[in-house]
């Protein structure tokens, strides 16, 4: 469903994604894990047509995201890591815009909007502008919106960041359900190793733009000789905190953008 070969993304001298290759089978739940600034979001952006790779190839359901952007966009849904709601619109209007974008028939859209907003406990607030929502509510709305249409591939970029355990549980139950009943392929990133362990069938660990390990959660644990995925993760990526790396990566992107280097 997703094939990535020797994918490369450079911002000037800085290499954000360094020659990575992996593939995700149809109907698989695949977790893409890594410390901050490792290149997860950059990779997702390239997979979802938002960013042009410097090198390598990507195939989504047999199509190249650069050449057949619109066809590729029809095939996936995404919950972004950072906010992507329209604060001036109400929750219901955000759902409406999304539904129209993804050609969800009106009747289905209204039904699903109701059930999803109820599931994530936003139904009472559906006619309020999103800018008055709390962080958690916004996050829940992002997720509800991402689930409004049923795509072939669902990208979840740290969807549970800042969510309470109840909502996280709802989300993963729903995602697993979609995966089992509709065969939706799921590509997710998260910092919660227990989630990845519970939900994902296969995992790739990325660090400094390179994939350092790939396999089932079981394989990763065996490979490192640890009991938990968290320990396996730490032994693969080291225990240094990566906030520095994240900022400098961000700065590089910022710089690259500022100088109009949009490639």
């Amino acid at each position: 469903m997703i094939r990535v070969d020797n994918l490369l993304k450079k911002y000037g001298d800085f290499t954000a994604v360094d020659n990575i290759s992996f593939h995700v089978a149809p109907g698989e739940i695949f977790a893409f894990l890594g410390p901050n600034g490792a290149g997860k979001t950059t990779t997702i952006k390239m997979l979802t047509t938002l960013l042009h790779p410097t090198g390598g190839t990507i195939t989504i359901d047999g199509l190249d995201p650069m050449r057949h952007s619109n066809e590729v966009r029809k095939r996936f849904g995404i919950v972004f890591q950072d906010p992507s709601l329209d604060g001036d619109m109400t929750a219901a209007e955000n759902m409406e815009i999304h539904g129209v974008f993804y050609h969800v028939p009106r009747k289905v859209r209204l039904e699903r909007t109701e059930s999803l907003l109820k599931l994530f406990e936003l139904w009472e607030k559906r006619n309020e502008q999103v800018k008055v929502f709390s962080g958690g509510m916004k996050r829940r709305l992002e997720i509800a919106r991402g689930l409004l249409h049923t795509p072939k591939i669902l990208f979840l970029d740290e969807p549970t960041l800042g969510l309470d355990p109840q909502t996280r549980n709802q989300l993963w139950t729903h995602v697993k359900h979609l995966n089992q009943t509709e065969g939706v392929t799921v590509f997710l990133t998260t910092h919660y190793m227990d989630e990845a362990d519970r939900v994902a069938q296969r995992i790739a660990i990325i660090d400094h733009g390179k994939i350092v390990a790939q396999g089932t959660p079981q394989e990763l644990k065996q490979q490192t000789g640890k009991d938990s995925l968290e320990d396996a993760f730490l032994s693969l990526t080291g225990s240094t905190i990566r906030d520095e790396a994240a900022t400098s990566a961000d700065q590089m992107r910022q710089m690259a953008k500022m100088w109009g280097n949009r490639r």
Partner: protein
Amino acid sequence: MSAIYVLWLRELRRYVRSRAQIAASLGQPLLYLIALGFGLGPVFQKAGQGNYVQFVAPGIISMSILFSSIFSGMGLLWDRQFGFLKETLVAPVPRFQIMLGKTLGAATVAVIQGLLVAIVCFIAGFRFADWRTIPIALLFMILIGCLFSALGTAIGSILQNIQGFQLVMNFLVMPIFFLSGALYPLSNLPGALSLVTRLDPLTYGVDGLRSALIGISTFGFVADLSVLLAVTLIFLLVGSRLFSKIQV
């Protein structure tokens, strides 16, 4: 319901919800109308050019459409800042349609704004020469709105952050306004200024609107209309090209 419609509707909803902004954006045209209209009125009269409020009102209406449409078009910058842009960019909708929806929405908002200013002008003493030419006036208002909304969207696609806003304001929007003949007659201008005014697309919008409202025209209906249509089309094409190249 199509993506173009829903994006158009979004711009309108946003406009209706920003009541404070609507009030604020009527302030500036009102100031121009009163300070210039009545301030320069006596001089204008003495120079044998007639009533200045009559002359300047179409210019002020054009100005409000220009400002409103460029800013709404540049609303793209806010979408980028607050993240909604990503939602539109990954949607399976041709980017031309997204750009068109936004542009038409911005143009509609700008025309409404222009109509509000027209009412303010009317209250301040402006009178139409002929009620029957109002549809033509409306046509020119729509064209000005579309042209500059498309320009705004094009600029919004290139600029990466809101800091660029002031730059656009000082080096693009203000010159477009001041060099358009909105405030002064285009006859007997010094050669260089005369040339520059003819390169400014707003000149033809103001001229068309002025001819529809008070029957004074420099270039004539056909010239005004063709220039506006052609430039609008060019900006739409350039804008959608730039918009489709956005990466985030």
